[in-house]
């Protein structure tokens, strides 16, 4: 068993070393003598996009790592932090080798297996004989392809990391890693391609399903996909030992609160960075993001105050995250006040999803990845169809009405269809992946390991040694 594991690991290492080595030589091909297009690079846009990329990485760790880490029991704190941290490594390498190519390479349409950018071909800069200097390929007029690649790569990290909330405290680390690789290539990449690379879910693309949908920063691609997959994970892996019997309170809410704050800060990069520039659109997305988070951060604890007499910091944090999730697809299309409404709605709806609904259904989505990201993302995608406005984004051209609130009903239909496709696709593929992994590697640590905690059993370390 262990030998098998080691072999497997060695294999990976070889592959990981091999692929870039090949690419190294691939990149050594004779440089094309075309005219440089990078004169149009805007340092302002690039400055913002680089800062945004840093902010989005900060969301996964320390952000999500602390947020999730604080919510589990002490014996599993390193387990979840390690999942986040390791994914920062694993998914980034995967993205550079094939992920970016799958997601953003090739033509539109359903198929997503393009090797156009395989191992960063054509992404890095190249000596340009005509210009007499190295030239950086551009994504569009204003930022380098490299910037676009690395910014999008940060999304490829945090999306599977969000799922880890569902199977926290019991999943095998090795299986988690393999799951995230496959999930990334077979769920994230296609969705990303369909929505953001002119695929059949994008608004305004010819032949788009139900006219296509709007998703500014990842309501469908990131949150619905991860949240719904998380539900499948929670169901297939089963409840934690002692769930519903033993108390499993968050072991360090100070971490959770600080993690939530970092998520909030980092989300500015996530959402306003999705403008891919530093103009008015980025400012609008920034404001909408902030106000929705703010509204969520008060709505949830106020619900607690009303129904239970006390507002909690976990409620404020959960509400802020719910507000952030909900505004994600909408932030580049809505005005500030509707952003507040969306945040309030997210706070109230996710509050019920995580308390009443979850309790009724009895599944153990340990850290509420589904309740917050699945439900909040769906709500956000639908409300985008309501509040998107021509005042912010001229989606149909010529200043035609956009959202339901402006009197146009077609967008919301596209939104709902996109949500359904995302839900069905994500959950279906996740189900298949998990079934296969369950049969081959096994999903869950042994009962003994679970009782001892993942920190010791999976990583041989302890979180705190305070004696």
């Amino acid at each position, binding site marked *: 068993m262990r030998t098998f594991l080691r072999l497997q690991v060695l294999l990976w290492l070889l592959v990981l070393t091999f692929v870039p080595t090949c690419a190294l030589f691939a990149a050594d091909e004779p440089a094309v003598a075309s005219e440089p297009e990078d004169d149009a690079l805007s340092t302002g846009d690039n400055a913002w996009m680089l800062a945004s990329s840093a902010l989005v990485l900060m969301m996964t760790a320390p952000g999500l790592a602390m947020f999730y880490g604080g919510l589990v029991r002490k014996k599993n704190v390193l387990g979840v932090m390690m999942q986040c941290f390791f994914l920062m490594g694993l998914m980034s390498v995967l993205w550079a080798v094939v992920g970016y190519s799958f997601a953003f390479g090739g033509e539109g349409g359903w198929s997503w297996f393009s090797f156009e950018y395989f191992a960063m071909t054509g992404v890095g800069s190249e000596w340009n004989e005509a210009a007499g200097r190295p030239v950086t390929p551009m994504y569009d007029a204003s930022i380098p392809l490299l910037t676009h690649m690395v910014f999008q790569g940060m999304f490829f990290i945090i999306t599977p990391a969000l799922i880890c909330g569902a199977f926290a405290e019991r999943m095998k680390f090795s299986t988690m890693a393999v799951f995230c690789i496959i999930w990334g290539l077979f769920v994230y990449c296609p969705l990303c391609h369909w929505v953001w690379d002119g695929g059949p879910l994008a608004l305004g693309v010819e032949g788009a399903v139900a006219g296509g949908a709007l998703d500014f920063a990842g309501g469908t691609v990131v949150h619905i996909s991860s949240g719904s997959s998380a539900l499948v994970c929670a169901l297939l892996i089963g409840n934690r030992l002692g769930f519903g019997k033993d*108390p*499993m*309170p*968050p072991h360090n809410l100070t971490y959770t609160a600080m993690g939530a704050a970092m998520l909030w800060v980092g989300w500015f990069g996530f959402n306003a960075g999705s403008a891919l520039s530093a103009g008015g659109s980025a400012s609008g997305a920034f404001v909408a993001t902030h106000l929705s988070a703010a509204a969520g951060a008060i709505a949830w604890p106020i619900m*607690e105050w009303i129904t*239970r007499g*006390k507002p*909690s910091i*976990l*409620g404020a944090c*959960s509400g802020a995250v719910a507000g952030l999730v909900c505004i994600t697809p909408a932030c580049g299309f809505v005005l500030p006040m509707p952003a507040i409404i969306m945040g309030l709605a997210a706070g109230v709806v996710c509050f019920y999803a*995580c*308390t*009443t609904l*979850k*309790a009724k259904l009895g599944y153990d989505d340990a850290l*509420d990845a589904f309740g917050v990201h699945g439900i909040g993302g769906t709500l956000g995608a639908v409300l985008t169809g309501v509040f998107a406005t021509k005042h912010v984004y001229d989606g149909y051209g010529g200043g035609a009405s956009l959202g339901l609130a402006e009197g146009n009903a077609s967008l919301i239909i596209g939104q709902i269809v996109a949500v359904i496709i995302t839900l069905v696709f994500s959950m279906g593929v996740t189900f298949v992946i998990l079934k296969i992994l369950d049969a081959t590697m096994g999903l869950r640590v042994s009962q003994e390991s679970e009782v001892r905690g993942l920190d010791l059993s999976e990583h041989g370390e302890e979180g705190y040694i305070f004696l």
Partner: protein
Amino acid sequence: MKKVEAIVRHFKLEDVKNSLTECGIQGMTVTEVRGFGRQKGHTEMYRGTEYAVDFVPKVKIEVVCSDTDLKKLVDAVLKAAQTGQIGDGKIFVSDLHESIRIRTGETGEEAL
């Protein structure tokens, strides 16, 4: 010699310590404990899941003293730790066979 174990409220520790030193006690050992008793714990609510936290934080003070000092000591603790509310805690007294000061090897009451 007697060993006195007093389980008292957390925020009474300072008072009990002062009260004990006033009546001449020169040493004690303190442990963080959690107590279960008539005093009910509280419930905590995390995202809709309610946990009954039955155990209340308490402090255990252990003092070894000579048989003659016992009464004085127990009274000192009683006076300092009492609030009259449920959950004030207990004093348990047991016999001690021997006590030794590690530094010098002295034994018996000399060692205290």
